């Protein structure tokens, strides 16, 4: 009786395998878009680019524009990380602040296919292959860091170093860089708790089932600013795994993509981006560095 069952089970398994293996492999079609992004980068006449409005550089972002990416919902003031980056890029392209025009574009419209009302848009856009089919991206101006958040009064609320988090019970979403940050950077004594999504992790934090959770920095700002009643960012962690990248969005095939990428590359190489990141994302109102 048993052995017959075992044979039947083996036969079933084999049939399953055949059906899996028998399907001829569909060869992945390689996305051809995106490769031509950096084709035109030779001629970038300062202040005289082929812009939306001649002589002006039009930069888009959403309204409201959130802290600490912007400041006081005024993108044009040059304060906040993304406002500062945008103005630095504009300056490199030969457009001083008086020649920069900010325009309101919702997040989804900016990455939707179709003609654009801006030269570039800055609004925490992650660079993904899917989006590359609809829009151009500059090279990344920010590599997303992971951050530990908690609620006020938690035992880790005052932690200043990674060592201070050694005894903390931490949680994160499954399969994310955040979880990797716990196991590879924080290495706490108690096993981390793992959730299907950030909302479950947040609920566990509110319930006090974990001392803190690890999320990416933009999410950390959003959760502590808008979602948690008394959320606190403990701090941001050193880079780990393959980080998400934020890029400036341009129209698909825009003549400016090469020039903007060149400008961002320069800012990264001369350390301006690092300085701005430290000033706006790690400074007051931001997330202190844990080391």
């Amino acid at each position, binding site marked *: 009786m048993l052995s017959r069952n075992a044979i039947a089970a083996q036969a079933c398994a*084999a049939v399953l395998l*055949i059906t899996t293996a028998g399907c001829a492999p569909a060869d992945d079609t390689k996305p051809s878009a995106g490769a031509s992004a950096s084709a035109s980068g030779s001629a970038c006449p300062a202040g005289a680019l082929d812009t939306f409005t001649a002589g002006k550089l039009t930069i888009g972002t959403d309204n409201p524009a959130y802290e600490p990416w912007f400041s006081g919902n005024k993108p044009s003031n040059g304060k906040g990380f993304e406002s500062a980056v945008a103005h630095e890029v504009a300056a490199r392209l030969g457009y001083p602040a008086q020649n920069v025009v900010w325009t309101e574009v919702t997040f989804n419209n900016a990455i939707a296919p179709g003609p654009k009302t801006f030269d570039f848009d800055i609004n925490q856009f992650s660079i993904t292959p899917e989006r590359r089919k609809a829009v151009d991206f500059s090279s990344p101006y920010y590599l997303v860091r992971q951050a530990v958040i908690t609620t006020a009064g938690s035992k880790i609320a005052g932690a200043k170093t990674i060592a201070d988090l050694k005894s903390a019970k931490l949680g994160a979403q499954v399969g994310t860089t955040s979880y990797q940050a716990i196991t590879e950077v924080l290495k706490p004594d108690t096993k981390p708790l*793992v959730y299907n999504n950030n909302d479950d992790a947040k609920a566990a934090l509110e319930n006090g089932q974990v001392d803190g959770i690890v999320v990416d920095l933009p999410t950390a700002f959003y959760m502590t600013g808008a979602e948690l009643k008394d959320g606190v960012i403990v701090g941001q962690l050193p880079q780990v795994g393959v980080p998400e990248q934020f890029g400036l969005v341009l129209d698909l095939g825009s003549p400016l993509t090469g020039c903007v990428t060149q400008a961002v590359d320069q800012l990264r190489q001369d350390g301006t981006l690092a300085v701005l990141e430290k000033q706006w994302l790690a400074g007051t109102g931001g997330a202190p560095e844990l080391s």
Partner: protein
Amino acid sequence: MSATLHEPSEIQRGRIAYRRRRTIRSVLFAALSTAVVGTLLVVAVTGAPGWDRVKQSFFDPEVARRYLPAILEGLWLNIKLLVVCAFLALALGLLIATLRTLRGPVFFPVRALATGYTYTFRGLPLIIVIYLAAFGVPGLRLQGTPGVLVLGGAALIITYGAYLAEVFRAGIESVHPSQLAAARSLGLTYRQTMRHVVLPQAIRRVAPPLLNDTVALQKDVGLVSLAGPIDAVRAAQIGVAHEANFTPYIVAGVLFVLLALPLIAVTDWVTLRAARRQSAGV
């Protein structure tokens, strides 16, 4: 005296030899046909155009070795939870089933509550119960709320208790009323009748479906990982996300099957024994 030892006749010896030859023949045929089918399967599977990709994505020994320790560690949590939850769910199920069979108008509310419980929790998806218990209850911020493992385990026990209660009730009702009447006429009280006459027969009869539900529970205890603890499936999921390779799922799946084998074997054996006893008229 030794001369009178039984000697099979010539014809009987012939019969025995013939039967032996037939047995050997059928074993040989079975072996041969199994070998042919097996070879065909191996050729068909490994020769299929997608086999290399399947092997790479599902059966990467390097990935399997890397994540086996974590998955085993998760499986240990499954086993601990299974043992505790199975015992408590069986106890709860038996209690509810007994309450549902109480006679007399006084016990109507008890019967109604027990019936309502089995109806509700057999219909309610386990995931909802776990979410409510493991996220909802701590959200009330009551004093002395236990940890997620206890809450998740409670959700499993409550849900499976409802299934098991119905299995037990089916067993209790399958005992012929004449047994009850006979026991009562012997002077046993209702409790004594249940304890010594009805339940022993009932439980023996429903042992296979009870074990079957235990096998199902074995796979469902892992759902506690929704609340944060890392079980075998979750450990595998972490591996899959990290490697972009499905081997960890296969490893966890094989471990679950291996874990279920002893229970399934016991179920088959119990069923077989019950069938033999019944047909033997004992």
